[in-house]
């Protein structure tokens, strides 16, 4: 595309209100990143936002949740790339309109936050001087999980000529090494029926389009040619008509993707999706999606005043969070790069529970529950993992797919030819306690006893059992966990990693609390569960004992937690000497050398301090923040957001803001090139956390919710809503004032600052204000 005639350049953030995040022009080298950044999804289907006509630079494709496959020579299960349903080719006369050898007078793509759609606007001049105005709107429905829409509007500006449009499902994008085309030839639909090799899963995509002509002010019927053609590389509808200048021509397309999990006859199920609409199926689907989008965006949105740019960064994160979560959960979960790219192979990591779940727990608890149900449904896999490694209970996979079996590879070759053993699958055990933490966080915020007693309890008991089998009693009389990897993966196989131990202690605590809660309120369900998992009477007592006597590496004198035993003895490296730095520290120092230093990859001690913020004094937080922030190389994209929250907690709002920006720009900044493989979905969750838990200072505790805002200088206020124990809290936070309003039917407790509680009743506005650094309630 080097001969591309561009009168335009890449500009991400546009000031026009209706285009909050836009990419103007085309920059071929970045095309695969743009496809990720503007990707679409609904948690069941995800599609890269490729240019609709083909280019060698494009990497189009869709991903269907749960469509995992493993060939006989593959080390692990992975998510197979499915066909691209967004393909459109437009011909003026015989010329294919394209950006490569024609003149793009104007070209722009953007996310329309008002409608939850992706829009492309393109004014093209071909070699014959014909100018065509094109607008393409695409969406993946939030209302019905199987529906995919694309609307094409074409207006020839200065010519009268035949226009042809070939719109359909492009199978070239799919990974044919792992897919079989089943040749589904339907009379009224463009159609694709595919089956995964080795795993035998099926999916069907049907497509049906309608043609409309808008002659200046009124719509009229014109003659057009129409056919459906099926090829090995796809199935396409063709429209052909004589176009007149100034008229708008619309092709409205609704596609429907069903799998054999939806029904045993996915083709019939897909056809029935169209039948539910009475008239114009596209319009009805589009409206339903738009309505659902507006509802979801409204309940998830964070509104800032004082900084338009940051507002767009937050909107971008919320867009991806909503589209990642909507139909996710139960049988599948959100992979590390969402359903937006091939990187990370569709594997699910701790990212989902620790970075995404808070957003859903506090804005859409139903989705949080569905995501946790995925873990419940993979408990058997987790039990097998534990057994395989010689432990008890359930050990959740570091990299999980559909069965819950460990899918992390054991070896990898680095670009310098070095073969490295991947130890995360075997030693990064904290993921089980992380999931237990997430179960409790959900219950804590929702008081959903039904979930806790029927599903959550089993996760908590089995993970507590796993932790117990990790623990060894030391000569000091305390319990230790040796040979693990904490979140800081620069230091592998260490003893007493503070994060692992702290989360294990919490796992024991919440498991025993759940046991006693069930014993008191739900003895019948407890009895059934005890029988199911052979829970002994004394296990909860043991858990309590382990919790009380866990070694945590805390020094009351310095108030520091030692990240792991022997950490203080390692060489200190002054990271400032390496600034400005553009590559990870372990590349600079080498992996072996890095392991011998105090350089850490990401928040480890600071991570658990963030999770249990209410348990620590400001002094403890500050001491540990100053110590570990200074040693953190941020080699993981998961690092900046946690540092942002923690910097807010210790009152360093300038640091917090710097980390917020660093995290929020991970995908949209043109710096790393690795957005091409898919969105860093954990970072988008991190954006929400750094605003809600950081700048808004939200901290859930037993009694209620604390808000201790630490707004950066760049912002005037933050406004968002939170779901808390079936009530919706609307909070507007200024630097020195907080306004609360709740809708619901119960009184709840809110605290302005730590701690200044007030019982809040629904439908009344409450105001707290800061007076001499102390929060007070206005009567």
């Amino acid at each position, binding site marked *: 595309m080097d001969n591309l005639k561009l009168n335009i350049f890449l500009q991400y953030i546009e000031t026009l209100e209706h285009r909050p995040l836009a990419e103007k022009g085309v920059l071929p080298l970045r095309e*695969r990143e743009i496809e990720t950044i503007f990707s679409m999804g609904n948690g069941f289907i995800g599609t890269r936002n490729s240019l609709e006509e083909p280019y*060698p630079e494009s990497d189009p494709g869709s991903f269907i949740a749960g469509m995992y496959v493993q060939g006989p020579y593959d080390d692990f299960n992975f998510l197979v790339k499915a066909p691209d349903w967004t393909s459109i080719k437009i011909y003026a006369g015989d010329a294919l309109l394209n950006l490569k050898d024609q003149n793009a007078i104007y070209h722009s793509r953007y996310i329309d936050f008002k409608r939850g759609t992706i829009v492309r606007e393109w004014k093209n001049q071909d070699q014959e001087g014909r100018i065509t105005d094109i607008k393409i709107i695409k969406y993946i429905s939030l209302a019905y999980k199987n529906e995919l829409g694309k609307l094409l509007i074409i207006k020839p500006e200065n010519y009268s000529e035949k226009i042809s449009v070939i719109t359909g499902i492009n199978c070239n994008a799919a990974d044919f090494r792992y897919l079989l085309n089943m040749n589904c030839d339907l009379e009224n639909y463009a159609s694709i029926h595919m089956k995964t090799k080795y795993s035998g899963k099926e999916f069907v995509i049907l497509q049906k389009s309608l043609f409309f002509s808008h002659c200046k002010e009124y719509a009229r019927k014109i003659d057009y040619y129409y056919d459906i053609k099926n090829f090995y590389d796809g199935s396409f509808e063709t429209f052909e008509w004589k176009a007149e200048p100034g008229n708008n021509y619309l092709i409205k397309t609704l596609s429907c993707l069903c799998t054999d999990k939806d029904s045993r006859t996915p083709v019939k199920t897909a056809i029935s999706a169209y039948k539910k609409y009475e008239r114009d199926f596209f319009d009805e689907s589009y409206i339903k999606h738009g309505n659902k989008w507006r509802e979801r965006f409204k309940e998830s949105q964070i509104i800032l005043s004082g900084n338009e740019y940051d507002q767009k960064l937050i909107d971008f994160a919320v867009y991806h969070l909503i589209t990642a979560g909507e139909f996710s959960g139960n049988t599948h979960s959100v992979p590390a790069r969402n359903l937006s790219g091939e990187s*990370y192979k569709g594997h699910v990591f701790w990212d989902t529970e620790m970075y995404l779940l808070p957003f859903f727990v506090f804005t859409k608890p139903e989705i949080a529950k569905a995501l946790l149900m995925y873990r419940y449904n993979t408990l058997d896999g987790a039990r097998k993992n534990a057994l395989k490694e010689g432990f008890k209970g359930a050990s959740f996979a570091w*990299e999980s797919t559909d069965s819950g079996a460990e899918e992390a590879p054991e070896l990898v070759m680095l*670009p310098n030819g070095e073969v490295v053993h991947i130890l995360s699958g075997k030693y990064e055990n904290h993921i089980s306690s992380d999931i237990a933490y997430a179960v409790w966080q959900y219950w804590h915020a929702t008081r959903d006893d039904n979930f806790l007693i029927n599903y959550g309890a089993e996760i908590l008991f089995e993970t507590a059992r796993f932790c117990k089998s990790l623990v060894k009693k030391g000569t000091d009389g305390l319990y230790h966990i040796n040979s693990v990897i904490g979140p800081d993966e620069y230091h592998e196989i260490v003893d007493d990693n503070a994060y692992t131990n702290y989360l294990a202690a919490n796992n024991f605590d919440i498991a025993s609390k759940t046991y006693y809660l069930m014993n008191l309120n739900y003895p019948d369900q407890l009895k059934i569960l005890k029988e199911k998992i052979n829970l002994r009477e004394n296990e909860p007592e043991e858990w309590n004992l382990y919790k009380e006597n866990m070694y945590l590496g805390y020094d009351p004198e310095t108030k520091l937690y030692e990240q792991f035993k022997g950490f203080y003895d390692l060489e200190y490296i002054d990271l400032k000497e390496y600034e400005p730095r553009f*590559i990870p520290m372990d590349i*600079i120092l080498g992996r072996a050398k890095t392991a011998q230093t105090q350089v850490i990859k990401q928040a480890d001690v600071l991570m658990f301090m963030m999770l249990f913020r209410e348990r620590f004094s400001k002094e403890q937080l500050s001491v540990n923040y100053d110590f570990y922030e200074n040693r953190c190389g941020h080699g993981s994209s998961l690092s900046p957001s946690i540092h942002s929250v923690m910097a807010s907690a210790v009152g360093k709002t300038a640091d917090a803001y710097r980390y917020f920006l660093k995290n929020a720009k991970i995908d949209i900044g043109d710096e790393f*090139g*690795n957005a091409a*493989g898919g969105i860093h979905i954990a970072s988008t969750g991190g954006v929400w956390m750094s605003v809600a838990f950081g700048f808004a200072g939200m901290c859930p505790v037993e009694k209620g919710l604390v808000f201790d805002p630490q707004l950066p200088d760049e912002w005037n206020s933050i406004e968002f809503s939170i779901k808390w124990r079936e009530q919706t809290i609307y909070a507007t936070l200024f630097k020195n004032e907080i306004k609360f309003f709740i809708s619901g039917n119960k009184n709840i407790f809110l605290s302005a600052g730590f701690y200044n509680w007030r019982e809040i009743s629904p439908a009344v506005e409450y105001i707290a204000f800061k007076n001499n650094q102390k929060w007070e309630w206005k009567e």
Partner: protein
Amino acid sequence: MKGKVLLPLDSSEASIKAFIPAKSIAKLLDMTLCILHISDEELTTEELLDKLKIKIEDLEYFVISQRAGSPEEVILEESKSCDYIVMGTHGKTCDTTLRMGSTTAKVIEQTFKPVLLIKPDVCLHIENGLWSPQKTLIPLNGTPGSSEALAPVMMFIAKTSSKIDILHICISPTEQTLEQSKFSAPYYEDYLQHEWASWSKEFIKRFCSVNKNHIKASISLFHGDPAEEILSFAKKNNNDFIAVVWHGTMAHLRAKTLKRILIECDCPLMLIRLG
């Protein structure tokens, strides 16, 4: 119009070393080989070919010309209508204690055409009478400019059976450019088992614009002194052709990497100057 490969010769043995590589590029890319003899003496074509020890039957599409005058000026003028220059690093003087002869030094600094430099002691892999590199080393810095500049190298490589080793040496902060769409090693490597595969794929797609399926490109990543890394990589991997993008000045403290490669490498070296 057929493309041209310019082969300037001064009848020295060192300069004639460039004949086979020049002939090979012309043949593989279907170009005309323009043999340019720079000398004050006037010779017939036969005499000239005889002097240059070139057999007429070895030539396909060719033009032979003779010109007198300042060699670099003549070469630069003639190169204006050519696509590639292939020349020896040294000529008549052949002072191998120097990186290259003065004519070559002036040519490479002043031309924007790709220059294939052949050292007097070069090792060439010959197949069917043609130079056919087997393992090409291309150091890439992760900027679109340098990858675009490599197009002439890629065109040639695509016609051979050579594998490509792309070597990315992480850009040190002082060398950061503001060029859009550049990227170096990822700042974040969340889980290296996935990050590197994904990074390598994108790096090759972005900066190694080879759309031919038969070309096998692999990427390696190093951090450190570029010259040191390039030379030790080339030695370890038996690279027999290196292509380097450079800024076009050999001034004091500039082109440190290239200067060292010129001295130490013993394979043909193609220089492409950034526009």
